[in-house]
Every structure is written in C-alpha cells, then in structure tokens.
C-alpha cells in the first residue's frame, strides 16, 4: 500500500479531522502494544482507513481518550481505541505488508537500499511473527500476491493483468472485514477496484523513475515524455476504475466514521497524477453559477 488513501483535509469537518487524527494516533499506540515499537514505523494512512472500515462494519464502539505521544512525550494527543479487534487487525495488515514489501525491495534494488531493507526486516521480524500468528491467512495471502506479481510482470499483458495481483489481494483483505455474506460480496468488489486504483495510480506516478531504472511498469509501452496524451490516457484509466469503485462503495453499509470514509473514497480520484510539484503562490476563486431549481 502506498499512502494514497487519505482524506482531503480541506473538505473534512474539524471534528471529523480530529477524530481521524485520533484514529491515526490510536492505531500507532495499539500497534506499539501488539507488535512492538518497530512496527509503529510501518503505520500508514491506508491502514488507518482499514481500521475505520473494520470498526464501522462490525459496529464496534470506540473510545477517544487523551494520552501522551510515544515519539514526543511532551505532546498530548487524543487516542482512539476500539474495544474489539479493529485496530489489532489493521496493525497486523500493516506489519505484514511492510515486511513483504521489504523482502521485495531486497530482491530488486541496489545494494544501499538492500542493506537498509535487511535491517528493517530484522527489526520487524518479531512483530511480523506475532501478527502472522494471530492472522495466518493474511500472511499467506500477501506472500502469494508477490509471487503472482512476478508472474504477471513476466507475462506483460497490459494494465489489467499487471493490476490483478494487487487488486485480488485487497479484494481478499476487504472480504475479511465483515462477517455478513451479502456485505462480503460487495466488499470483495470494492477491494478489487480499490487495489486496482492504487496500483494504476502508483504506476502512473512512478513511470519516469521506472523507465530511468529499467524497472517494470505497465504503462511503459505507451509512455511519451511530457505528453498530454499519455496523462490523458492514465487519467481515463483511473476514472474508469474509480467509477466502479464508487458503485461498490455506495452499497456498503457503514455505521461509524461514515463522513470520514466518504471523504476518502469520494475524493480518491482528485489526487492528480504527478507532473511536477505545483505550489500555488496565488489561486483564483471563481464565483459559482447557481441554477434555479
């Protein structure tokens, strides 16, 4: 997972934003408790969302309480804690994904990165063991995904095949979130398109880097430097996937955190594909046209 699933903070209400922050910090604290200090370094926005969806689907009650931050003990933060399994689950997913991501890095990177990844893996090992003892299914699934990814890259058969392993992995992970059969089916589709969206976006963002380093990228054949056509193509591919994601998302029955998760999903497409870092020194506020009802 790549940190794509974060809310647009400008669109959140302040109270939702504070709640979101408390979930983020709460997940960090829970991960420290369950999987060790090194595991907290793997914390990501994606897993925060996963924790929220889990809690929301299973109608878990959450407590928000003030406490002190692990990394900055002078600071007081709000921490959200679930009475049941939500944060435990999300933490396990985060640790296991990070561990296998590091294994992947060791396989195909330069020696500097490889060395760092080795150290990281040693640090994560104990947390990883605890997580896979609690959820053996997740570990197996993530393991299989990296094998599938290699096969798909060898096959080199367009964007659909390349995105399939990530999409299938998220599909299975999302299916684990609920116990209700009807919801499970919807969550499977939802996860599929979520994974697909993340994969395509990541591929479109990394294209320049991948071509420079000679890595695999599904958009490789279509890429033309600084071309609007290429950007257009990527945007269209993302739009199409995103529209299917919204269709599935609309059918999911959430109970808590709904406004935050709505925000994350409904603005997931608005994150532009990287062109260059744009900083807005000034911007225009256009008057909106209101049509009479």
């Amino acid at each position, binding site marked *: 997972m790549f940190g794509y699933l974060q809310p647009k*903070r400008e*669109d959140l209400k302040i109270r939702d934003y504070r709640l979101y922050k408390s979930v*983020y910090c709460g997940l960090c604290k829970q991960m420290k408790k369950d999987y060790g200090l090194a595991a907290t370094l793997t914390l990501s926005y994606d897993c925060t969302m996963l924790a929220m969806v889990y809690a929301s689907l299973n109608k878990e009650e959450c407590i928000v309480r003030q406490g002190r931050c692990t990394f900055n003990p002078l600071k007081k933060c709000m921490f959200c804690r679930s009475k049941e399994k939500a944060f435990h689950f999300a933490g396990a997913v985060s640790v296991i994904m990070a561990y296998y991501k590091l294994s992947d890095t060791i396989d195909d990177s330069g020696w500097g990165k490889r060395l760092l990844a080795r150290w990281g893996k040693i640090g994560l090992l104990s947390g990883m063991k605890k997580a896979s003892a609690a959820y053996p299914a997740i570990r197996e699934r993530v393991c299989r995904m990296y094998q599938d990814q290699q096969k798909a890259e060898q096959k080199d058969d*367009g964007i*659909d095949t390349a995105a*399939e392993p990530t999409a299938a992995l998220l599909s299975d992970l999302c299916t684990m979130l609920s116990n209700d059969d009807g919801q499970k089916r919807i969550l499977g589709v939802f996860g599929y398109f979520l994974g697909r969206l993340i994969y395509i976006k990541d591929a479109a963002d990394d294209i320049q880097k991948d071509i420079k380093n000679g890595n695999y990228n599904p958009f490789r054949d279509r890429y033309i430097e600084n071309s609007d056509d290429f950007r257009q193509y990527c945007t269209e591919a993302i739009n199409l996937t995103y529209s299917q994601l919204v269709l*599935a998302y609309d059918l999911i029955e959430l109970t808590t955190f709904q406004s935050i998760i709505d925000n994350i*999903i409904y603005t997931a497409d608005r994150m532009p594909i990287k062109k260059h870092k744009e900083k*807005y020194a000034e911007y225009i506020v256009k008057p909106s046209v209101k049509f009479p009802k």
Partner: protein
Amino acid sequence: MGKYDHYYQILGVSPYASDDEIKQAYRSLAKKYHPDRYVNSPLAESASEKMKEINNAYDSIMDMRKNGGGAGKDSFNYRYPWENYSPDRGRTQAKTKERTKVDFYTSYYDSAEVDKKQSYADARFRESRAYIQKGDYTNARRILDTFLPTERDGEWHYQMGLISYAGGRMEEAYNYFSAAYDSDPFNREYAAMYDILRQRRTRSKGIFDYAGTSDCNSEVCREDFWCLEACCCCLLDIANRWL
C-alpha cells in the same frame, strides 16, 4: 423502535421532515441505486435489493402520511366522513402513482427484451449469452474461445466485453465494447455499454454528481498537505492552538 422509524432511517430523513424533503431524499437515493447505473455489473442484484428497500420505505411513509398517520395499523384512525365516500378512490390513486414511478425507474437497457428479438448469426452465441446471464463466465469464455479470428464480429466482442467487465478488467472491457460498437453502431445494446464506459472514462456525464463535494472552485483543493502531515501532525497542532 417503531416500524416507521426504520423506514425514515432508510431514507435518511427525520420523522418530522416535510413531504418535499422526503421526496427529495427518495429521488437522490433512487438515482444512486438506479439499475441503469449497475447495468451488467456483478453488484446489480444487491443494488436492486437496495432499490426495493427504498421504494418500500418511501411508499409506506407516503401511504401513512396520506392516510393521516398509521392508517390501518393498530393506532386509532379517524377519517372525515366525506373521505369514506368512495373507499377505493384513494387507493387507486396511490396505485396509479406507484405505477408511473416504477415505469420511470425501470431500466431502459433491459437486456432480456432485446434478447428475444435478436436472432444470432451463430448458434454458439445463444449458449454463451445464457452462461453470461447465469454468471458462469468460465464456460462462456470457453465457448467464445472456439471462435476463429475471422468469425469474431460485434456480438463476439460485446460478449467478451461483458466477461471482462464482470471480472473488473476495465481496460480490456472498454476495448472490446468499442470494437463491438465500431462493427455495428446501430445496435442499441453495444451502443449503451460503450456509452456508459466512455462517459465514465471521460467523466462527461454526471455519474459522479452525488459523489462527495465536487463543487470546489478553488484550485488550492488540489494541493497536497502530505508533507505537513508527515511530521506527525505537530505543525498542525500548533496551528490549531493559535487559531
């Protein structure tokens, strides 16, 4: 919790909402779960269930309100004498209204109807189409793979597109549908599917209209606050305190 509270909850309105508000809520929900949005999607069934639920909730609430609150239920029900003048009148009115509503919201991409009229050039198409409708995509794929490259016409591309679409392989599906549309632009079915995907790709039609707050005018919305957040919310926290 009473029965009607549940219905109000489905529509997402308060029990004290006016009729217009309820109608509006119903409209937006009906748009959201409309069968046309989910045409040929693996989630079509769930969506139509949801649609039924909403229809049922709306009808019950409207009936209840028309009959002065809990008519025919266990609560005491007073009617003015002139309302009893023709007991069937109110009911028939309600029924005709319901029918127009259902007509309005039934799918106009009704594939079954088209299916009857169509006679396929190749007998294998009927078989594979039946498999697709049942949701058995591997068998349908097996039949379609037997076609030689020279035999692959619009129908073949359309059916392959349906299989890809159901499996979530959207780029493939789009290519198949556009090939089907190119070979036979006058076929309503091909044109409909091609149109849907094209609109979703280019966002030319309001499929996203109710999706979140898309009416943001200022460019600054696109700016990432990612780097700010990365240093553990400290800066924002300070900002919060100053504000």
